[in-house]
């Protein structure tokens, strides 16, 4: 694979310019090199362009803002520190006297112990760079603040000699520089090229041939502007704009990290699309996403109020770790830091994360200030691990904002009413409690006469194991199970029963040294036991058949969660006792009770069947059996059902009881017995459960919320468990200060970010849009505008654009609406209607040599489209695209096993593609699992959305070629395009080829192109005719479920297959993946 020219280029270009093109004598420091040749008119040195990048790159890490690491007391990022007399007696910079300046003599030293930077750093200063420094110091070493940290002032728009070419102020900035270089811009691109360029840039979709035709035919002077307005008004504009924003926001459909289970935060994604489409100004776009939850409600508009909270999902799109065993606080801290870094990266173009462990090396941000920012994002009620959903089964993590539809809201109201009614019934029951309790007292009076222990051990019994185990009686009347250990077993217990009433049967499990690897309950190592069924029969003497005792109740003195005693009556897997946990190994008892008292005749035999037949290896190993003759309704597993304390009170006449005593009885009845109240409570609980379950099915958004304030600390070396000094919320000193009296919180931060005085926000945003439209930003390092940033190619233009974006005074109207401050659509219109944007991207040999990277823009840029747009364009050309906007993520075709080859965790497994519309929706709706992202998108340079990404690579690899040639969706697109060529292109083959070109490329083919493809059709047709089977196979492979006859547009398979290959060629042309 080849490496694209790029990041290393800067350094080299300088060397090349210096060595080879003597006509351009320009000694630029590295890092600033690619901004193109400087204007010849400016011969002097610009500190920010020429000197700061050099000092920053070579010196600041030891002689910069980080006080802790500063060497020798020398500080070169500001004038005082640079010229201070050092401990050694020397002075780093002596303004006006290069010879006396220690900095220069150390840089030029030939002694490897003295030379700066030290050789091990690997960043030597070249002779040319030293010369620059010498001239700068000689000129008085004038400092200026880093340009990007200075307030944006609107520069004068320059004059140009050519008055015809410039349409907008933007053009005058570009042209003035070109004229200074003696260069001239390209002519305007063809109408067809412009139609496609504008459409792809604003909507990410190709224009239809009819749109192109109408635009080409429209000769009115406003035709182009109208076309731009039309595309800005398209609902697909918001989709295209969102693509890069989703990268920055690290938006995805899974939580990330190890388990990487699903989440569903698409309401936030849809908010973004809608916000772009309704042209929400960028300042509001910013405030709502950072702090929409802290804004006051919109009066009388619940939906708008709710929407602004949905917007805060921006800072909830981070990953959340749910791995077993994590220390939640560690990951809560990482989450908060992620928010600070992402916010800094997205809006300020700064790598604030550097200050997590130490003062920033290059930019004026201290570690303390970093944690002051941290504290603005740390009050979210969260733990650091996934909350409110099962880690593995997926779901959104708290805090959430439910987003029910109208029908869903009605269902919620209904369930709430059921709860309220049941509550009322409970209250009513409370009021009438007294007579009911008195009545109950009468019925349980017999219990007062029962002995404390109502259970009697059954001694003379016979035992049998269906699995072949044997039983040995121990001295205490218990039985030890020995012999074979079948995986599953059933014990049959037979005993002679005393005549009279039978109130219950009780099984008592005991530990034994021979069990569970020593001292456990079970016959296996694990130690736990599971009884899954207990059945009781009474066998009367004589020939009468045995009668099953109907059991109505089961109780145990301990139940493992999820394994209740009642399940031994049927309906569950059984009763278990946590015996695998050493500290839970206690004697346990299980009792079953008949529904009504059973009268046992003389000489009857009791038959108990204890089934242990569901969970292997969980049979118990030592036990005792008891029965009770007491009335069944009065007894429980531990003796008399009514506790002794209550019985003591009941023996007192009701009139003679103290209020406390009566309260004890009433409370006991109410909690344990009271049927009417209990029923109402059960109904209420069931309704609450139903409501909770229903709420779980509702769409929701993960949002920001201010919970109880949490203290924030400077974390030593950035480690969560090393808190240092406590910090108060605050903004860094280099940003505009808060208004007096204003509390530092998230909302204040958001408002500060979009204040007119903020030096970074607008510069960062306009620069990234420039990068998107022209291939490279005015500042090439669009991810970083800090001290280490590359100096802008057109600094005045950048500031003019930033100023005008914030103020909106020169921005054009869009569809007749005047522009507002921070108006994104108007800003795009300004750029798109400029002459610089409208020029042809044809590369001339002369300008290529002068300006290989096209930083001066003497030509329009050719830019490779993002992966999403490549796929969407193919689907649109093929007529397959389903243009619906928003909603839950969809599952288009992806390679088999896409989620399963590297993970068996979480609920995102076993990927199954949609068969309906989800197959052909726009790529931005494809479900995104962070640890295994959509493969084709990743091949086309999409980031994996684990962390904030504000800049994608633009590579060119063989794997991209393979996907465009062979990937199923692109194959289906080729077939779709072939169908349209045949159906819409007429009978003439050349007409069909023309239609294919217009659909995919927005232009007609030239004669040579038609000739190449016609020859191809003939050749392919004869290959397929010779082997019709292969044609059929090929055609069926991408039929997308259509019947073949329909899929082939009525052509014979071998004919249609040949057309598919024509379409395949068109969809693989360089022009198809480029925006020309």
């Amino acid at each position: 694979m080849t490496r694209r020219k790029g990041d290393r280029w800067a350094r080299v270009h300088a060397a090349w310019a210096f060595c080879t093109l003597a006509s351009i004598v320009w000694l630029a420091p590295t890092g600033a090199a690619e901004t193109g040749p400087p204007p010849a008119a400016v011969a002097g040195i610009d500190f920010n362009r020429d000197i700061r990048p050099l000092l920053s790159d070579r010196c600041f890490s030891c002689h910069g803002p980080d006080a802790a690491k500063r060497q020798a007391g020398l500080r070169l990022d500001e004038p005082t520190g640079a010229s201070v007399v050092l401990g050694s007696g020397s002075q780093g910079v002596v303004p006006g006297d290069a010879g006396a300046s220690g900095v220069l003599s150390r840089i030029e030293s030939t002694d490897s112990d003295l030379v700066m930077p030290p050789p091990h750093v690997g960043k030597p200063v070249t002779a040319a760079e030293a010369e620059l420094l010498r001239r700068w110091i000689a000129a008085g070493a004038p400092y200026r603040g880093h340009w990007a940290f200075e307030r944006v002032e609107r520069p004068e728009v320059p004059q140009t000699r050519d008055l015809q070419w410039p349409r907008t102020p933007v053009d005058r900035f570009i042209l003035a520089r070109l004229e200074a270089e003696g260069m001239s811009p390209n002519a305007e691109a063809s109408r067809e090229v412009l139609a496609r360029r504008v459409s792809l840039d604003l909507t990410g979709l190709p224009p239809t041939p009819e749109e192109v035709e109408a635009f080409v035919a429209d000769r009115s002077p406003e035709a182009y502007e109208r076309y731009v307005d039309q595309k800005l008004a398209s609902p697909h504009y918001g989709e295209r704009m969102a693509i890069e924003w989703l990268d920055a926001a690290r938006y995805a459909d899974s939580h990330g990290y190890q388990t990487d289970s699903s989440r569903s935060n698409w309401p936030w994604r849809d908010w973004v699309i809608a916000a772009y489409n309704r042209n929400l100004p960028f300042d509001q776009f910013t405030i709502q996403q950072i702090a929409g939850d802290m804004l006051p409600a919109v009066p009388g508009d619940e939906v708008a109020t709710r929407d602004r909270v949905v917007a805060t999902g921006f800072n909830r799109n981070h990953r959340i770790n749910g791995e077993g065993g994590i220390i939640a606080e560690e990951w809560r801290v990482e989450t908060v830091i992620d928010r600070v870094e992402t916010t800094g990266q997205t809006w300020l173009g700064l790598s604030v994360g550097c200050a997590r462990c130490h003062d920033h090396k290059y930019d004026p941000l201290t570690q303390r200030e970093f944690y002051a920012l941290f504290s603005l994002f740390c009050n979210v009620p969260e733990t650091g691990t996934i909350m409110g959903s099962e880690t593995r089964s997926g779901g959104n993590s708290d805090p959430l904002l439910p987003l029910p539809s109208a029908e869903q809201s009605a269902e919620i109201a209904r369930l709430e009413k059921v709860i309220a009614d049941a509550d009322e019934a409970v209250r009513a029951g409370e009021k009438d409690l007294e007579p009911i309790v008195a009545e109950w007292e009468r019925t349980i009076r017999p219990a007062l006469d029962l002995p404390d222990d109502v259970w009697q051990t059954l001694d003379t019994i016979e035992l049998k194991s269906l699995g072949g185990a044997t039983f040995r009686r121990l001295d205490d009347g218990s039985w030890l199970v020995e012999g074979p250990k079948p995986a599953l077993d059933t014990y049959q217990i037979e005993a002679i029963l005393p005549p009279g009433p039978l109130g219950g049967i009780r099984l008592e499990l005991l530990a034994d040294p021979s069990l569970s690897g020593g001292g456990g309950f079970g016959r296996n190592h694990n130690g736990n036991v599971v009884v899954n069924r207990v059945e009781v029969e009474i066998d009367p003497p004589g020939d009468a058949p045995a009668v099953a005792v109907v059991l109505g109740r089961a109780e145990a003195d301990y139940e493992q969660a999820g394994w209740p005693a009642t399940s031994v009556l049927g309906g569950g897997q059984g009763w278990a006792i946590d015996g695998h946990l050493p500290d839970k190994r206690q004697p346990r008892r299980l009792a079953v009770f008949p529904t009504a008292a059973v009268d046992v005749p003389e000489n009857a035999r009791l038959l108990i069947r204890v089934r242990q037949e569901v969970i292997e290896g969980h049979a118990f190993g030592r036990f005792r059996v008891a029965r009770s003759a007491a009335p069944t309704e009065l007894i429980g597993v531990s003796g008399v059902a009514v506790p002794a304390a209550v019985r003591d009170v009941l023996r007192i006449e009701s009139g003679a009881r103290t209020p406390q005593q009566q309260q004890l009885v009433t409370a006991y009845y109410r909690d344990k017995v009271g049927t009417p109240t209990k029923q109402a409570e059960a109904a209420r609980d069931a309704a609450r459960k139903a409501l909770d379950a229903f709420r779980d099915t509702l769409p929701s958004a993960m949002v920001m919320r201010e919970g109880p304030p949490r203290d924030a600390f400077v974390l030593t070396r950035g480690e969560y468990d090393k808190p240092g000094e406590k910090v108060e919320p605050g903004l860094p000193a280099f940003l505009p200060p808060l208004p007096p009296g204003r509390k530092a919180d998230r909302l204040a931060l958001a408002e500060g970010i979009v204040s007119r005085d903020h030096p970074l926000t607008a510069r960062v945003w306009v620069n990234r849009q420039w990068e998107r439209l022209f291939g490279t930003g005015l500042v090439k390092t669009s991810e970083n505008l800090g001290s280490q940033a590359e100096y802008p190619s057109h600094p005045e233009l950048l500031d003019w654009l930033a100023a005008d974006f914030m103020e909106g005074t020169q921005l054009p109207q869009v569809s007749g609406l005047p522009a507002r401050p921070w108006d994104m659509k108007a800003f795009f219109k300004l750029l798109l209607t400029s002459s610089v944007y409208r020029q042809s991207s044809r590369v001339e040999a002369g300008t290529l040599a002068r300006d290989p990277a096209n930083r001066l823009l003497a030509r329009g840029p050719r830019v490779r489209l993002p992966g999403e747009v490549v796929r969407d364009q193919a689907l649109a050309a093929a007529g397959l695209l389903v243009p619906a906007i928003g909603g839950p993520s969809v599952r288009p075709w992806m390679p088999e096993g896409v989620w399963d080859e590297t993970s068996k965790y979480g609920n995102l497994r076993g990927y199954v593609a949609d068969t309906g519309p989800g197959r052909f929706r726009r790529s931005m709706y494809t479900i995104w699992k962070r640890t295994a992202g959509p493969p084709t998108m990743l091949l086309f340079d999409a980031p994996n959305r684990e962390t904030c990404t504000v800049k994608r690579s633009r590579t060119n690899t063989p794997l991209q070629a393979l996907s465009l040639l062979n990937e199923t969706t692109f194959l289906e697109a080729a077939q779709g395009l072939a169908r349209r060529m045949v159906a819409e292109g007429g009978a003439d083959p050349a007409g069909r080829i023309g239609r294919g070109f217009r659909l995919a490329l927005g232009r007609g083919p030239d004669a040579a192109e038609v000739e190449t493809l016609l020859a191809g059709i003939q050749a392919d047709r004869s290959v397929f005719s010779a082997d019709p089977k292969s044609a059929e196979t090929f055609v069926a492979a991408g039929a997308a479920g259509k019947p073949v006859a329909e899929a082939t547009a009525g052509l014979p398979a071998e004919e249609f297959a040949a057309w598919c290959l024509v379409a395949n060629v068109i969809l693989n042309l360089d022009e198809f993946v480029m925006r020309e």
Partner: protein
Amino acid sequence: MNRPQQLLQLQDRLNRRVFLGGATGTLAAAVAGLGTGASAAHALPGLPHHPPKAKRIIYLFQSGAPSQMDLFDPKPALATRRGEELPESIRQGQRLTTMTSGQSSFPVAPSIFPFAQHGRSGMWFSDLVPGIASKADQWCMIRSMHTEAINHDPAITFFQTGSQLAGRPSIGAWASYGLGSENADLPAYLVLTSFGSGRPDDQPLYDRLWGTGFLPTEHQGVRFRNSGAPVLYLSDPPGIDRQTRRATLDRIAAINGRRAEIVGDPDIAARTSQYEMAFRMQTSVPDLVRISDEPKHVLEAYGPDVERPGSYAYNCLLARRLSERGVRFVQLFHMGWDHHGGLPDAIRGQCRDTDRATAALLDDLSARGLLDETLVVWGGEFGRTIYSQGGISDSSYGRDHHPRCFTTLLAGAGIKGGLTWGATDDYCYNVTTPDEHVHVHDLNATILHLMGIDHLRLTYPYQGRDFRLTDIHGEVVKGILA
């Protein structure tokens, strides 16, 4: 000469000059490719920094973290201390995962597997790994590895990228970025994965482990798939034969060439050359995975699993075939080493998967004279605790994650064989050799060093800072170098 060709030549000269002066460009490679019919991505200027010992690496990552005291680091004195509490003097209050931090006791679980010394060096191995043990004199066994993370995701991310959090390039991506590719028909960085039989459901792997972070995307590892074509979208659609595909590519090239005349962009030629490489990959990759051409004795050496695509043994054989073809960085990930409970059974399964094939790989590389120039690494993301997680018996126990010491094996190019490096205390809990401890950054610095890279100098500017694999740490472990 027509205009685009002139342009290309100009651009070519430009780029070559640029290239010599210190940059690379698509075009330089692409144009070279057009001339010779094959191209390979170049090394960065100035790289390698020094003559490499290892031309290639085969990295056998054991994901989930193998238990060092059951495989490599015997603690015979513990045999009589089964179930005794781990002394506080050993644990020293170090943090634990929340899977065991709530345990009321930390009973020592000595390994139940017998150890013996092997080879002339007398290196210790347990009887779980007879194959690996038979190569004792080729391995350098580092017993003093340590890391910072205590959970799988951050720990394996740390190993691969030098950071516990997502976003940094993987070690293979760094190698590809710095050194380029030696093979014009295959990517420089290939990844092979397999599930283990010891614990078939774990631990998951993540794209980022072979991702590029902020490096250009083309350096990301290409993961071979375990079913269907090994490389995504490698196969022509059904019904399309090679001649037809060739003809399609020729038409694409013809129309692209025509477009190049009109728009003059030399990058169009670069795209055409990528299509050519794609076409060659369609042949070279199937050749690569056609293991039926291997001699019978070689297949047998790797064991019966070798016939099953997606098994560790199969991947080991592929690794050798890839190395033979000059692929610089081949990384296997074998999952299934996370044994919190029932460790003895589970680790037996893992060793069954890996032991024989690992030994066969070393033999196979030696037999072909490749081991001298290939670095082989075997290890996981952290170690395991001496105390048992959950119940303990004379035949079963479990072990939690342990970052403070574990064992990694190295062999091949530039490695001192038969050397045991570093030691741990009686409980295999802490490293006791202050001069012979190896942090993850140190291991990564050493791997890069062996490949001819100074880890301090392979950097990439991003967000205003020069990033490197070892962050601001890492020292080459000179003592283990031959």
